[in-house]
């Protein structure tokens, strides 16, 4: 394939993953944590698509689409949680939200 080899795409994917993980670990607003999580998932998607191209196997793209669907589902639930928390006037700070009532 012309242009950059798959290794370059994988480096971008790795960087995205690392950046996302930093956001998840360092930020306190749960919205930003969710956004960083999305970046991590996109990094993984990029790696999948890159490998799909490299090995000529369409399964990687299928997997990436499934990841997209699941990420959408997870965002729905996460945002629902945040909205519910906001309605109860709870501070939106993941450091404070550590009680985890089952």
């Amino acid at each position, binding site marked *: 394939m012309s242009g950059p080899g798959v290794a370059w795409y994988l480096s971008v994917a790795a960087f995205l993953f690392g950046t996302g993980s930093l956001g998840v670990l360092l930020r306190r607003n749960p919205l930003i944590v969710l956004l960083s999580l999305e970046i991590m998932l996109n990094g993984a998607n990029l790696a999948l698509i890159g490998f799909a191209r490299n090995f000529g196997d369409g399964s990687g793209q299928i997997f990436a689409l499934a990841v997209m669907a699941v990420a959408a589902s997870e965002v729905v639930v996460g945002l629902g949680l945040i909205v519910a928390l906001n309605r109860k006037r709870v501070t939106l*700070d993941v*450091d404070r939200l*550590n009680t*985890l*009532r*089952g």
Partner: protein
Amino acid sequence: MIYGAWICLLSPLAAAGLITLGGQRLTRRAAGYLATLSCFVAFGGALATFIGLLGRDGSQRQVVSTAWLWLTAGSYRSGLEVLIDPLSVFMMLVVAGVGALIVAYSIGYMDGDIEERRYFAYMSLFVFSMLLLVQGGNLLLLLAGWGMVGLSSYLLIGFWHDRPSAIAAAKKAFVMNAIGDATMALAFFLLIKKGNSLEFGILGGQYSSTVANLVALGLLGGAVAKSAQLPLQTWLPDAMEGPTPVSALIHAATMVTAGVYLLVRTHAIFEQAPKIADLAAGLGAATLLLAGLIALVQVDIKRVIAYSTMSQIGYMFLGAGLGAFFKALLFMAAGIVIHALAAEQDMRKMGGLRMLMPRTYWAFLIGALALVGIPPFAGFFSKDSILAAAMDHGAYGYVLWVVGLAGTFLTGLYTFRMFFLVFWGEPSAFVREHFHALRRDVVGVSMASTVGVLAVLSVIGGWLQFAPIWHPVETWLQTVAEPVVSPTNWQEAISSALAFVLGLAGITVAWLVYGARRVAVPRFASAQRTLERKFSSTSCTTPSSTRPRSS
């Protein structure tokens, strides 16, 4: 037979699903009945599998039934498979049987609780997870069951989620179990790299001693976390925040024995890593002593049971570490029944109950005697044979043997301290106010009958194996786990005699101090304070991940 095994595995899961989906359409009592029925069906399946396996001779007794090929990645293959062999059937019978009894007990105990359906869904999920753990045909499924057991335990400990103490206890249990999960996962990574598969058979392959030691260490980490041994033991006493049947099922009986099961199932790799096996035995010995000492100063019955469980599992680790696998397993079966029995006696602030609750009195007495290892009750035959195995193990073994005997004395002491404090003397004011006789309806019957069954099992269970006369359990499990040590009859006799004498001595001391009140309760203030703080320095062992980040 294969259908039996699959039914055993899937029936509690079906119950959990049905209760969840049924929601408010099921009455609370119906949810309880459904859960109990599913556990009895599971026991039936286990029994069918057992009978099927009996029909085959020794070499034929390992059957793997694959549902489908689940995971393929490169040259690694993993299937959704169930292993039917003597060890797994043994565990299936115990888990399903005791689980069914305890879920039946819960119908009575949890009666009237608003969230009863959720409780029974969680209990069914737990029984399913535990069965997956013991029936899983490869290490991957074992890990799946392992994780789900940790999850169910978190959900059940924190069941009364209005109580901050319960939530904190649930979190602590989950995080500590996660540490064990992490070490196990690392061990599995190493196994995949070196052996290219996670079937049980590859544990017997030839590995360099570094690899064998690392894998065994990782597995030991998981077992230690799950079974609440040193140094990951602080979650178990706090786990008593959950409802009593949860404590009985999970933390006295089945979940904490998962670690012992793991050690036996993976014994092949421990045989290649003798230092780690010695470490396992040493940790078991240290835990049994420590837990016994702490149990002496606890005032809450459930805490005494928790520390007693911890101590008895220390015996099992001792046995497994020394190679006396079926003895450890036998003791485990006995221990499961005994502790389930003991944990179901949920009473606080009592005294003088002998007159008021005679049947409970006798049941508790039987359980206590069985625990201490007095013949002819269940604990006697198994615990002492573990000690005999220690004698066979060289100089280090003798140290462990002494520790084990000291533990027997302590067991007698703390068990009967609890017994005398609860049942003898004059009824306290609290008791006279709050006591009510056991009801005659379903609630009362469910609780009384299950306790009765467990008491009977405590009595007769020990006779499953009476060395040196008959060894049905040993021959049954021989194909799975060849014992590495075989003590002579003399060693067995000496261990048994000494353990019996020491147990009696413990009971006598407890009687002198607490029963007949002839001797004043000794007050070693500073020692007592240290023990009361449980050597715990919980701040030390609580991982910082359970504490909030400073903002």
